[in-house]
């Protein structure tokens, strides 16, 4: 967009005055709009628009929902509410599993800690970290 050079080495942009005027205008416009959206009248108007949209669309939405529910019932298929309920239950199960996972992790860490602690029998070689796992302890218990 820049064209020929000026005396100070910068390029002369014929659009620059237009851009400056545009920015000035947009600044003024922007401030006016900010004042407008901050007004009670704007809040009231947008609230009314949203409310009328919801009021007008509600009967159609309800009709579609009822029709869909009936169709699904006739086809012996689960409704949207059934699926959502299952999703909620799955999240609860996920939480229980997460708690179990954490508890198992705690137990594992405790076992490793106990396994690597110095043993009372002197003279015997200390087992390495890797060997002091739960299966080995179980083996000793069986003997």
């Amino acid at each position, binding site marked *: *967009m820049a064209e020929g050079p000026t005396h100070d080495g910068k390029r002369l942009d014929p659009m620059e005055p237009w*851009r400056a005027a*545009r920015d000035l205008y*947009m600044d003024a*416009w*922007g401030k006016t*709009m*900010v004042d407008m*959206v*901050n007004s*009670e009248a*704007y*809040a*009231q108007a*947008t*609230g*009314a628009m*949203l*409310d009328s949209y*919801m009021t007008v*669309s*509600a009967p159609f*939405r309800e009709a579609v929902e009822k029709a869909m529910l009936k169709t699904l019932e006739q086809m012996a298929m689960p409704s*949207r509410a059934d*699926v*959502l309920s299952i*999703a*909620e239950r799955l*999240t609860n199960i*996920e*939480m229980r599993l*997460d*708690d179990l996972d*954490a508890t198992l*992790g705690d137990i594992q860490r405790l076992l490793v800690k106990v396994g690597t602690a110095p043993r009372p029998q002197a003279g015997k070689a200390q087992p390495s970290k890797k060997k002091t796992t739960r299966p080995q302890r179980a083996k000793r218990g069986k003997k």
Partner: protein
Amino acid sequence: MAEATATTDPVIAAVDRLQTLHNAITTKAAIAQTPKELVWTLNKAKLYRYVPVLPKEKRHPIPLLLVFALMNRPYILDLRRGHSFVEYMLNKGYDLYLLDWGVPGPEDKNLKFDDYTLDYMPRAIRKLKAISGVEEFSLLGWCIGAILTTIYAALRGDEGLRNLILLTAPLDFSNKQGLTFARWTDERYFDVDKVLATFGNMPGEMIDYGAKALKPVENYIGNYVKLWDNIDDPRMVEGWHAMNTWVTDNVPLAGGVFRQLIVDLYRKDKLMRGELMIRGERVDMSRIHANLLTVIAEGDHITPSCQSEPIMSKVSSVDKELFRVRGGHIGIMAGSGASKYTWPHIDGWLASRSR
């Protein structure tokens, strides 16, 4: 992306510029490029651990968990290579985790602050502790994420929270005249129950409209004018493209949280008044003892400073700091000045408290 090339033919140059403009507006930029691994999930929430770039002996021992807002994508923290808070903090030696809330579905419409702060966050933090092998951690909450981290800090702060960083935190809603959102969602004009009965969750598009309508000319026109004015600057176009990718990637807000946000916070200011109840527990900010850094954006039109400042006098933290930085709600962390001002300050503050 096609960039405008230096050509003497004005027609070709104009076509190139239009092509660049079209691509920047209509395509998605490559964002969130920092390598990370998924370490935990619950419902839609995911906990990521960023792959450390420094050896363990050079890293800070206290891990940092990033918690972003519920209704925007968290990759604003890792926007693009060479300009990413995540990348910056990894290079500074932090063990970094990100809690991504995901996209709530219709089945999540009843999720509340209660669920996020007492079911999701404690479990994610438990996992973080198990992986990092330390009992203490730092939390960084931004925007609605700062509300979540504040509630968590007040209710479960004694479970290892050492440092709390709040970015543009909307916590005080007492100044109704200064909050445009408070005016729009006033009970005389806005029927929150009817909205949620209609939509279930608050649609991302409506939240996006609300955020943009605060400065309509700037967001709907000025933003594109700025792109056109700088269309020959590939670095500027790249930054604009990444930001536009993030801005247009909207996430709905769970209905239960939206109701609490409007009724309990915007209308009744329950958090700051100490009346907010989370599963029967009162959120008392005087129970926050962690070291606290509150970052305020001086040009923030979404969360004005009057919403973030008052927490400083409410907490019991001995070590607390209020840091003001020039910029807007998002700009302070993702704008061109972020890497010069906000990020170094956060690192400087946190590094000395992460030993």
